[in-house]
């Protein structure tokens, strides 16, 4: 029997997870390059595919999702807040806006010296999209399996998830071009806020805290960070302006 309810529930549930993964892939792709970002996401899909192919439905019971949330969340949180801090410093005038290429090269050099770089692959981009896609994909698989088994409609929950993948991929393809027109520092600022919010949420889930309004908390964490950044930039700019005025007055005097 055709089970529209199971299919729709799976479409909506997994759709939310896929949109979250897509947001990370798009953001990282625009800033750090599509090759590494897409490779990271694709690797996660392959790993998940292999896991589900070998283990099947018992995967839900075997993988402890909170450990994945904790590790991925911590990585995203530290990485995201690092970008956000840099973006605030640049907007505030505490760090130059024009040293993007230089600082990126410095970072690559640091990784190279640490023996961590393979040629052509941006490991940060790869790891970020890999971990984000892996976690979201895992959650989507859990939705499909648990809901499908409970409703005795696994075929329809899988169809719902497949439709969600196709729709989200289409949206991603359409958004790719307009997003690449956003100025680099603005994009880094947005990605910093996004990764920090996602990271904080996942670490919290891993630590068993209770977020008010569950997944919606990602939005209010992001809104708080946006407000804090805006106020900080205004305050820093005004202090620097005041300092410069005092310096020029003392020079004239």
């Amino acid at each position: 029997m055709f089970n529209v309810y199971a299919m729709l529930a799976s479409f909506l549930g997994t759709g939310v997870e896929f949109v979250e993964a897509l947001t990370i892939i798009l953001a990282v792709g625009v800033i750090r390059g599509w090759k590494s970002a897409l490779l990271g996401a694709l690797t996660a899909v392959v790993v998940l595919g292999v896991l589900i192919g070998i283990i099947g439905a018992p995967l839900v019971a075997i993988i402890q999702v909170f450990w994945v949330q904790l590790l991925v969340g911590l990585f995203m949180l530290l990485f995201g807040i690092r970008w956000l801090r840099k973006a605030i410093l640049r907007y505030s005038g505490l760090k130059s806006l024009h040293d993007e290429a230089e600082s990126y090269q410095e970072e690559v050099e640091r990784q190279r010296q640490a023996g961590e770089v393979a040629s052509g692959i941006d490991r940060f981009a790869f790891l970020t999209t890999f971990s984000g896609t892996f976690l979201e994909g895992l959650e989507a698989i859990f939705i499909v399996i648990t809901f499908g088994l409970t409703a005795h409609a696994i075929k329809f929950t899988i169809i719902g998830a497949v439709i969600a993948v196709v729709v989200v991929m289409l949206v991603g393809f359409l958004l790719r071009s307009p997003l690449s027109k956003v100025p680099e520092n603005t994009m880094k600022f947005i990605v910093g806020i996004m990764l920090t919010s996602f990271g904080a949420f996942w670490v919290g889930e891993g630590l068993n805290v209770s977020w008010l309004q569950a997944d919606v908390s990602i939005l209010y964490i992001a809104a708080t960070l946006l407000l804090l950044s805006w106020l900080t930039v205004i305050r820093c700019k005004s202090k620097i302006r005041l300092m410069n005025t005092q310096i020029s007055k003392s020079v004239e005097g």
Partner: protein
Amino acid sequence: MKVLGTLWGLLVDDGRLASILVIALLLAALVSHLGHPTVGSILIWLGLIVSLFVSIEHQLTLKTKS
């Protein structure tokens, strides 16, 4: 330990920010374990704000003193 140190260096620019954040996460884990999961989420939220504020404030102080 060396691997952890390298990873820490690559992910973290400012030790001040990271330390405050890690303390907030540890406190959140503790209070959540003690039966106050909502307080735990508020601690993480505050940790983000305080760590960023302290880190930027430090950079501003350095700039104004230089």
